[in-house]
């Protein structure tokens, strides 16, 4: 929504390790519908980067086209952003990441943007394990073009036109696991307590961290029969476990201390503690991860939380063997072999 936010801030607003307040992580005023799930995710993103004390300008935000893809304008106003074309954010992110391996790449997409037009790029950015956070704001519909069903719309749920959706729903998390993502999670826009630690863990993960966030479209897809609606998700949500995310520098205390806890060390050394329900295990086997998701589906529920985690994955730069210096900082000296070599080259042809 586009009305002005109150300008007033508490003078002693909490500061993070870098001395920034949360405000430093905010962006422009949202033009989404009041109550849109996407705005909640944006706010969770703000909170996550704030809490992790990441310098905002070290983050690059990328997106495709859609209501969801507009959100990068509404958070991290001090970060560069790239609102590209529909469904093609992953390739732009790939190029950007190749140019500078030192920044943090945050891709934001919609279910239309990713599961339909973007399916190919999604699959392949996962496959090349680009070091980025890939968030899908999943509302089961095309918000910006007024509510047509997307490929994640639930089979059987009532669509905009009133008729039940008749095609299989695509489960992006399951696909991501299968395509080799090292970090796959699902959250719910209305549950920040779970979402923020997920995003933080995703930020800390090296390689592609895929986060599917169920994000109800209040305008077009909030029919109670849709699994992307508020009411449905509230009723049917089943967490793999709540967990805390503990960056190296600062321990964050939470009130989630019941259940067993399995700490998993992420690539950058930070630790994710998964709190599982007694009957669940930490899932770092693809087979089990997929089984768990299929199982939940059979039980008519959505599995949330970190669904799969392989802390050992190699990202694109490692796979390629690229230098650690950002390529965009190299100059003539490193890049140009010079005329002598060229003359030698000419000679070799003679």
């Amino acid at each position, binding site marked *: 929504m586009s009305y002005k936010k109150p300008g007033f801030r508490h003078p002693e607003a909490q500061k993070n390790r870098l001395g920034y307040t949360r405000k430093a992580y905010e962006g422009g005023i949202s033009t989404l519908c009041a109550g849109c799930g996407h705005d909640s995710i944006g706010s969770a993103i703000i909170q996550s980067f704030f809490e992790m004390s990441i310098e905002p300008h070290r983050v690059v935000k990328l997106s495709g086209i859609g209501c969801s893809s507009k959100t990068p*304008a509404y958070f991290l106003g001090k*970060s560069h952003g790239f609102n590209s*074309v529909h469904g093609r954010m992953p*390739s732009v992110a790939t190029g950007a990441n190749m140019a500078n391996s030192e920044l943090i790449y945050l891709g934001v997409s919609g279910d239309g943007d990713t599961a339909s037009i973007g399916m190919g*790029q999604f699959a392949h950015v996962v496959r090349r394990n680009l070091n980025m956070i890939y968030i899908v704001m999943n509302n089961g519909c095309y918000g910006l073009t007024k509510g047509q069903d997307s490929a994640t719309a639930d089979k059987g749920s009532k669509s905009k036109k009133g008729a039940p959706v008749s095609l299989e729903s695509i489960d992006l998390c399951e696909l991501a696991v299968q395509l080799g993502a090292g970090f796959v999670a699902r959250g719910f826009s209305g549950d920040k307590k779970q979402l923020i630690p997920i995003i933080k863990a995703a930020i800390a993960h090296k390689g592609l961290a895929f986060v599917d966030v169920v994000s109800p479209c209040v305008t077009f897809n909030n029919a109670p029969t849709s699994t992307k609606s508020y009411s449905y998700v509230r009723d049917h949500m089943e967490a793999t476990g709540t967990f805390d995310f503990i960056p190296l520098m600062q321990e964050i205390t939470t009130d989630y201390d019941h259940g067993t806890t399995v700490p998993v060390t992420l690539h950058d050394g930070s630790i994710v503690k998964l709190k599982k329900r007694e009957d669940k295990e930490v899932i770092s086997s693809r087979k089990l991860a997929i089984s768990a998701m299929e199982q939940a589906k059979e039980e008519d529920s959505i599995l949330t939380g970190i669904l799969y985690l392989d802390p050992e994955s190699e990202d694109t730069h490692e796979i*390629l063997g690229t230098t650690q210096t950002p390529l*965009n900082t190299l*100059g*003539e000296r490193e890049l140009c072999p010079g005329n002598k070599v060229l003359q030698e080259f000419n000679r070799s042809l003679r």
Partner: protein
Amino acid sequence: MKRIEQTNDFVVRFANVNGSGSASANNLFAKVVYRLGVPVSPKNIFPSNIQGLPTWYEVRISENGYLGRRGGVDFVVAVNGQTLKQDYEMLVPGGYFFYDSTRDLPEDFNRDDITIIGIPLTELCNEEFSNPRLRQLLKNIIYIGALAYLFDIGIEPVTDSITKQFAKKPKLAEPNVKALEIGFEYAKEHHTDACGLSIRPSDAVGDRIMIDGNSGAALGALYSGATVAGWYPITPSTSVVEAFEKYAAKYRIDPKTNKKNYAIIQAEDELAAIGIAIGGGWNGARSFTATSGPGVSLMNEFLGLAYFAEIPVVLIDVQRSGPSTGMPTRTQQSDLLSCAYLSHGDTRNVLLLPSDPYECFEMTADAFDLADRLQTPIIVVSDLDIGMNDHLCQPFSWDDNRSYDRGKVMTAEDLENLSTNWGRYLDVDKDGVCYRTLPGTHPTKGAYVTRGTSHNEFAAYTEESAAYERGMRRLLTKWETARSLVPEPVFNIRDEAKKIGALYFGSSTYAAEEAFDQLAENDMQVNSMRIRAFPFQQEVFDFIDEHQIVFAIEQNRDSQMKILLSGECQVAPGKLIPVTNFNGLPITARIIINQIHTALLTGHNSQFALNSMEKVNT
């Protein structure tokens, strides 16, 4: 029968089956001629498959340095049974038919105007070698040996080349040299003086090198500091990135860490390839992709984004015969209109039009400077003929004092020192090109959201008509800046009276220049202009204006350059006369001359008849 007698000026055609190892043998032949100092120009005419279909390698040898296709064949090496008859028939009278006489020629091969030279290649080969794979390869070397005799080359120049080629594996050279000798000796013994064609050492090559354009482009990208490449395989552009990878692996490994100072991503398709290049360019790395027609079509949407969001990126389009999949292994200049106006809406792209491997090198290198300077896509429009065939061209060179022009990029310091508000799309210098920032530059200044949607001077989303219109007009200012920066046309004014002009570009150059020479010999002086870029400079328009008629020579059906010129400038009706060849084979001087003659004879359907035309018709 009058057999052809020529030294250093004839055409040899090798007719082979692809996948049979003939390519390297034939290439060896061209290389030997080149090393003898005789200008040579081979054309590989190959099928769109991997093995078993006819393929030809046509070598023009020309002391005068005419390096376009000539048309007609003087000597054919016919070792493909599938096309034996066809190869036999396309020989010019007086020519030479060289075949594998292990099998007899069929009855109906009964021309009496050509010389037949049979050598039992298979038999000779099988007698000497037993390994089947080697046999297949060395059969080809045997005929090269025979040619060394028949063309009076002598065996040493060929042995030298082989030795050079196998310098690191001398064991492998041995059987090759043996095969060579077998062919040479057999020809010497059985076909003494059978051939009137000969090659004599010369210094006509000078210091020119022989290389293909795709390698040139790859080297240009390497020298110009390209670090990010996204690509997807497609003939005939594949070898651009493959060569870049090869050179980069050689010259771009960080000596300390042994890591790569470049990143090449084989993408899932061309949409991703250009997306990767755009992402890299946006983030401050020199980035490119290379593709051909179908890929260009797929990059359509993304190119519009780069134009409108103003992102430097280089695209190398190695054209092939369209439309659609067309003839993937044949040449054409038919992506011109596509590239110029690529993408919906009011988009227009800067094109560079190299004509040989040297210009592929130079223009690709320049393309990165231009892209950074203009913050827009630069398309290097090459083609299969330039890109995949070897050509003689001036040697590459690099000015070690040259520094990369990274254009208007704000550093953290620049941002600090700015007295006014920085605006990504503010036309500070009134040249239409604005100052950009790269991600991560400054903690609080210079961040913005790049977008393909309409934006104001401060990169904020807007639907305000006036702001949108200002931005679009500024892009036209930038277009004028581009016009002042792109490579200028090359003129050759032979007739100050400026009656007849001709314009051409890219791979038509060789044939066009030969045609003008021949026309001049016949007293028809044609002034010529080689266009090297789009947008066109005033000089281009002036040249057309000043001449009574201007032939537009191009290798596409629709006279796309003529359309582009007419659409972009004011061309008097009837002034531009199309000369086209679009059958997939490189244009020849003969085609050009014929069409010019025909046009002049038939009044070239022009409203402005050229009064003095009679005089110039030869």
